[in-house]
């Protein structure tokens, strides 16, 4: 008996001493929190979390890759305890949810008839599936079978639908899907996704500079899910009220339906849901990721700055917007007139963005009140420059300094500031006014002058209507409102009287000659055809560029090194990352591209936000892989579209001319719910190559 006890004791001693020594000799440092977290998991090693056992899950939590709620067996108690160890709020880490990105895998034609084992993996093994479409959902629901939480169901149209409330983000579906269609991502990952060359995108989505998933929101409108549609748009564009009103909708130019009859009225639909949210009196919540503690200074509160700030805030960074003007919006507040975008509407929209927890410092001008160096000193980790294009190009002709001569942007902004009560310096309006130029600025000037009671308003443009860069609907509206459009005239000189006041404008008639480098036919003067127009006010609106005068003030300092192009726009290392030559400074919008569009600025703002996020997390700032940048997927733009019956698009309601020219009331009105549904029904819900034919199964 004694020997038994002794030998067991001896054996035990030897083992424990050996282990004790070994633990010293073979010590490897491991974060003690891993063990602590592991002890708080259920210890079932079930793998339901998607990690190889509880210890792997614990390591992932400590590495910040998994949320405290990772243990699905442990439930909320375990999540709370783990969060306490990690010093986080439970549930603040961004949840990952799964989403099936294909919504019409059945529409493509069959390559072959398949009667084998009904699983996606089996059919995918045979030439990548039985359908012609290389990217579509195969529809056998391997993801449904593999989901341990019953979060995926087969939708009525034959493709799996994820119930996002049940999804725990374990990633089993993503791992089993042979086509990489069902994907598990965090909100931040979704927000910073860009269209890719090998993706499944409708022609409209490919064309939209902000890359909104257009068929998705139109489908939501069709199903009456207006809030869902708003959220879909907000994943790509925070300024839906503004865009719904002023966007020249390049998407509609490439709409596949346009090949059959008329393009879907995409922008009207956007405006419809945007107005629906505003009029419902309830702001939809905009979820934001937990705070990262990084701070970003956004300079310029125009569309580019607002978009960049919005996306950075949504992924958890702290953002402050510095703007020269008292209110946010930039050119869409001080340039685009009230009758196109009521300032009340814009205010509702910008307030919603500030409500997310973004700070706004008004009346702060870069180069006057602060410089880049002072922002760095104040602890900002990155800077976004979205200062827009606020400097009018000068027209060097005789008399451009006479009394009664204005430039486009300064006229519009001065008037807007007065109209919005910011200044008490009204612009004296002439009787017979002439605006020189053919862009949006020129058109907005004439339409504003009409409303201000000028008796005769003309536009002088040196090419024809086809070459005019302004939005076509704007030109139509100006014409309806009685503006006299003089095409193929170029100003020679402005004539003044003895007091230095404008009395006339000498114009030269032109004709179109050979095309120039921009592809437009160059206007050449017609021999001897010179006219004098009687006028008492001339507005020069021949274009505008960024005002980079802040560089003067920063000479010799960091900001002075910022590279500027010949066109005075801010230079970028790569237009797809929008990083400048100073690594922590990023840019987008008119400041980066020269005068462009609101959507362009919004898309650029998101792109820059992605780069800033990469920069802040210490990753290399590289463009998205397979980025679909300003091109279309080959083969996705069709010459002809079969199997669709013609149907007219919905007309846009607008104020009649006689009433509208007397006030600054909004001209374009919103379409009715019925019309919105009808219009949504016209959409073909395109993918890269498939679309809904009349006879094929509809989504």
């Amino acid at each position, binding site marked *: 008996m004694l*020997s*038994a006890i002794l*030998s067991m004791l001896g*054996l035990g001693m030897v083992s424990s001493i*050996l282990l004790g020594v*070994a633990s010293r*000799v*073979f010590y490897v440092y491991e974060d003690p929190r891993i063990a602590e977290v592991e002890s708080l998991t259920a210890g079932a090693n079930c793998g339901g979390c998607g990690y190889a056992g509880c210890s792997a899950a614990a390591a992932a939590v400590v590495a910040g890759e998994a949320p405290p709620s990772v243990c699905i067996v442990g439930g909320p108690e375990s999540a709370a305890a783990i969060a306490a160890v990690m010093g986080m709020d439970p549930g603040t880490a961004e949840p990952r949810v799964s989403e099936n990105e294909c919504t019409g895998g059945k529409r493509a034609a069959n390559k072959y008839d398949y009667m084998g*084992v009904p699983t996606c*993996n089996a059919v995918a093994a045979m030439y990548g599936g039985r359908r012609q479409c290389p990217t579509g959902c195969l529809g056998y629901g391997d993801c449904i079978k593999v989901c341990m939480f019953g979060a995926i169901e087969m939708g009525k149209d034959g493709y799996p639908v994820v119930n996002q409330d049940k999804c725990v983000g374990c990633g089993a579906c993503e791992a089993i899907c042979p086509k990489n269609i069902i994907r598990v991502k965090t909100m931040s990952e979704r927000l910073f996704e860009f269209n890719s060359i090998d993706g499944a995108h409708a022609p409209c989505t490919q064309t939209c500079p902000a890359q909104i998933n257009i068929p998705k929101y139109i489908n939501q409108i069709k199903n009456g899910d207006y809030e869902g549609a708003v959220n879909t748009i907000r994943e790509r564009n925070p300024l839906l009220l503004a865009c719904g009103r002023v966007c020249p909708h390049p998407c509609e130019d490439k709409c596949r339906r346009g090949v059959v009859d008329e393009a879907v009225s995409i922008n009207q639909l956007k405006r419809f849901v945007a107005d629906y949210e505003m009029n419902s009196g309830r702001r939809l919540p905009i979820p934001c990721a937990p705070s990262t503690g990084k701070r970003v200074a956004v300079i310029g509160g125009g569309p580019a700055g607002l978009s960049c700030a919005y996306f950075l805030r949504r992924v958890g960074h702290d953002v402050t917007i510095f703007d020269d003007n008292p209110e946010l919006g930039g050119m869409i507040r001080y340039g685009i007139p009230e009758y196109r975008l009521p300032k009340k509407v814009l205010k509702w929209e910008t307030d919603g963005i500030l409500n997310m927890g973004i700070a706004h410092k008004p009346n702060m001008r870069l180069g006057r009140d602060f410089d880049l160096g002072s922002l760095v000193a104040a602890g900002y980790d990155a800077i976004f420059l979205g200062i827009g294009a606020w400097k009018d190009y000068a027209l060097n002709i005789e008399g451009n300094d006479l009394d009664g001569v204005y430039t486009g942007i300064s006229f519009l902004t001065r008037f807007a500031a007065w109209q919005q009560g910011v200044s008490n310096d009204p612009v004296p309006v002439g009787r017979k006014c002439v605006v020189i130029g053919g862009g949006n600025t020129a058109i907005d000037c004439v339409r504003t002058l009409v409303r201000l009671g000028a008796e005769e308003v003309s536009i002088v443009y040196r090419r024809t209507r086809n070459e005019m860069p302004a939005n076509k609907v704007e030109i139509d509206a100006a014409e309806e409102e009685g503006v006299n459009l003089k095409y193929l005239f170029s100003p020679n000189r402005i004539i003044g009287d003895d007091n230095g006041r404008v009395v006339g404008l000498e114009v030269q008639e032109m004709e179109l000659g050979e095309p120039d480098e921009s592809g437009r036919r160059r206007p050449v003067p017609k021999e001897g055809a010179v006219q004098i127009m009687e006028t008492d006010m001339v507005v020069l609106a021949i274009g505008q560029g960024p005002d980079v005068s802040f560089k003067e003030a920063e000479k010799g300092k960091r900001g002075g090194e910022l590279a500027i192009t010949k066109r005075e726009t801010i230079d970028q290392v790569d237009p797809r990352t929008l990083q400048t030559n100073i690594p922590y400074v990023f840019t987008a919008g008119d400041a980066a591209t020269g005068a462009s569009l609101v959507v362009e600025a919004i898309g650029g703002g998101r792109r820059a936000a992605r780069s800033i996020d990469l920069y802040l997390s210490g990753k290399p700032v590289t463009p998205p892989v397979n980025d679909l940048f300003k091109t279309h997927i080959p083969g996705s733009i069709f010459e002809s579209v079969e199997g669709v019956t013609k149907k007219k698009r919905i007309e846009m309601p607008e104020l009649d001319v006689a009433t509208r020219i007397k006030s600054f009331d909004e001209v374009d009105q919103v379409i009715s719910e019925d019309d919105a549904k009808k219009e949504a029904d016209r959409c073909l819900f395109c993918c890269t190559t498939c679309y809904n034919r009349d006879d094929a199964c509809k989504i």
Partner: protein
Amino acid sequence: MEYILLAISCILINNILLAQFLGNCPFLGTSKKMETAVGMAMAVIFVLVLAGVFTWCVDTYLLKRFDLEFLRTLSFILVIASLVQFVEMFLKKSIPALYSGLGIFLPLITTNCAVMGACLINIKEEYDFMHTLVASFSYAAGFGLALILFAGIRERINLGRVPKPLADTSIGLVTAGMIALSFFAFKGMV
């Protein structure tokens, strides 16, 4: 020749999983994916060879010498558990590549009945040191063989149409039974 016969008998005829029905929990637990099955098989081979040799030494030089055979089970548990812990620490520090391959499986087999069982069988059969070495390796190889075969079959089953009530473990057990039956064909070979 004798060793070859011993190996064949341990791998095929007395297969630890299919003929002795030891180590069933990892058999069902880690056979869903080929990758994990291979990892597990390697870990078992590694641990079983070590454990077989160690327990043989303990048995011969300690228990037998002092007439303490009744303490066999107890002391084997102690020895195997400490051994696995030791090896785990050693690998983590010295051969991290091997550790990352076997790592998560090692603790899982600390108290595995296949390991324990094989060690006890070695003693019961009164093998000498070389026989113990060969037998331990072969039992482990047999375990690996059965596990990998089974994982392959289960991956196929996943593609097939399995009635709901039979899904997953149930069909796994049925299949295991059938493989075991087929292994019975080796009986009487040696």
